């Protein structure tokens, strides 16, 4: 993250940032991809259970929620911001939508919309505080984290919300491709990644997100409404967190006030593992998907290997560092 690492970090994604769509597998995503493949090969060799359609679809299910949060996180980080509040916002959203249905007896669809709306409102709040008073995103989202967290527990009184109607958990249902069961949720997540890859790469708004993160002053001078771009980014991120909330509910089948407490760091990890620079303006959302999968594969693989949990943590630490090293090295190759 020191600029000393910038040259390798930058040049590559930069080019592609200019047109992600054509270069989804540009240098910035090549590294993560290689790392992911290596991890997969490794675990396939060490366990007989890893390499099965079922297990792979399982991994996707398990990274579905964090992955979706990481989409919003990518948007924010591309603007040179950071969002510590996404996990807490998601948790609050999931409690809102579930309680409205179970206690409030609202129709599920309406409840879902309201839940997502609440998340969007939090995102908007982040955006306004950051642009209007020009506060550092780290502190603003840290504050929001506390606020959303507290509201979640006050509103839910720590009660897990159960007895949800089937509509709310529909995304948890599966359809089968050949042998393997795939949840609709996984599908939605993949879809979201593609949508945002398109939006960031192919629309004016996307280019502006990069421009603002790349050099906010230059963007301002060339007449880009920097603040509006930022506010929309944080709001859109909020909406995405709302979707993540729905996915969470669908996956666990309940509204869980304790959910998402480590998801902020986890989502940032996915973004950075995906080759996006924390200094903004450089990186691809597809890389984030790869980053999330790397983490998911490592956890799943280690558990399949039956590694004791404490050693899982140890090895995860080592593997994460290895993963980015692979990235760095593969980039040197490509230059």
């Amino acid at each position, binding site marked *: 993250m020191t600029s000393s690492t910038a040259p390798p970090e930058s040049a590559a994604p930069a080019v592609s940032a200019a047109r992600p769509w054509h270069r989804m597998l540009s240098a910035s995503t090549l590294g993560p991809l290689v790392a992911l493949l290596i991890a997969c090969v490794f675990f396939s060799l060490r*366990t007989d*259970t890893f390499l099965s359609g*079922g*297990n792979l679809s*399982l991994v996707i*299910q*398990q990274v579905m*929620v964090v992955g979706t949060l990481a989409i919003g996180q990518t948007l924010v980080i591309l603007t040179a911001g950071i969002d510590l509040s996404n996990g807490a916002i998601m948790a609050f959203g999931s409690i809102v939508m579930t309680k409205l249905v179970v206690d409030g007896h609202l129709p599920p669809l309406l409840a879902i919309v309201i839940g997502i709306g609440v998340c969007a409102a939090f995102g908007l709040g982040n955006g306004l505080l950051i642009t209007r008073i020009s506060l550092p995103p780290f502190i603003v989202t840290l504050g929001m984290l506390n606020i959303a967290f507290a509201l979640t*527990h006050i509103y839910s*009184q*720590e*009660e*897990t919300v*159960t007895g949800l109607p089937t509509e709310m958990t529909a995304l948890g249902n*599966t359809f089968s491709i050949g042998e393997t*069961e795939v949840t609709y949720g996984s599908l939605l997540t993949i879809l979201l990644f593609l949508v945002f890859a398109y939006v960031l790469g192919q629309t004016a708004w996307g280019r502006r997100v990069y421009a603002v993160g790349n050099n906010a002053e230059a963007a301002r001078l060339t007449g880009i409404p920097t603040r509006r771009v930022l506010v929309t980014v944080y709001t859109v991120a909020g909406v995405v967190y709302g979707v993540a909330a729905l996915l*969470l509910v669908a*996956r*666990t*089948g*309940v509204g*869980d*006030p*304790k*959910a998402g*407490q480590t998801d902020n760091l986890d989502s940032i990890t996915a973004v950075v593992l995906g080759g996006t620079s924390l200094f903004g303006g450089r990186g691809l959302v597809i890389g984030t998907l790869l980053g999330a999968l790397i983490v998911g594969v490592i*956890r*799943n693989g280690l*558990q*399949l290997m*039956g590694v*004791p*949990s*404490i050693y899982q943590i140890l090895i995860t630490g080592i593997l994460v560092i290895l993963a980015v090293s692979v990235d760095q090295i593969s980039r040197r190759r490509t230059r």
Partner: protein
Amino acid sequence: GNSGSSGAGSASGAAGGAVKVGLITKTDTNPFFVKMKEGAEKEAKANGVTLMTAAGKFDGDNEGQVTAIENMVAAGVKGLLITPNDSKAIVPALEKARAKGVLVIALDTPTEPQTATDALFATDNLKAGELIGQYAKAKMAGKPAKIATLDLAPGISVGILRHDGFLKGFGITQGDPSIVCSQDTSGDQAKGQAAMENCLQKAPDINVVYTINEPAALGAFNALKAKGREKEVLIVSVDGGCTGTKAVKSGQIAATSQQYPLKMASQGVGAVIQYAKTGTKASGYTDTGVTLISDQPVSGVEVKDTGFGLANCWG
């Protein structure tokens, strides 16, 4: 004797501010402790004393609790009720507090040594684990068991006690071949589900699942349901929250050891009021009890049904 003590409460209130009682829970994110607070709150109101609450930042956060102790003593509490995140690490801070004449009562989790507190109002987590262990043993009726344990997190005493208790009750020891999978879940439903899913990938024929608490148990149930094996697998748990007890009633969880945080808290507050009024300190260990709840009784283990469970559940 509420009426009596309430009079005394207001009396001491007349003499320079109402009596302050401090309650420090492990975290803010566990219904168990929320119920504890509710119990304490009710008792405090009834007796016209003020309750101060604080909690650790995460499971195992000792420094946060030390800070809370210091601040409450500075605020002039008469007594402290605490569920220590670290039974040993908290001791020095508690001793400082007691040296300042504060009555210190451990709730739910004993300190090491127990003498570091004036009194302990707790339930025996080892016993809670043991009960579901015995239950599972009996229920398996000699069938070969393939056990998955969904635990709490590294080094959290409750988790360790319940886990060990379960093994004791089931008549096996750590490392027994019948334990095919052990994962930490932080007592979180989503994490519990992921852990169970991975366990099933590793050993599809698991037939007994021990879970640290009911959220984890429900997570495990989801994972099994996805594999269509929820009927064949025996899930046992600990806590006895209302959500959990309902899950027992609906058969998602076979049995759970029910504990009584409300009781611990209200008794604790009562003891502090007693001390404020008469100066007599509560002492020793008061077991607030644990009951095995299940609708599928087995021979040789005492079981109460979910009717009782729901009547006495706390969450």
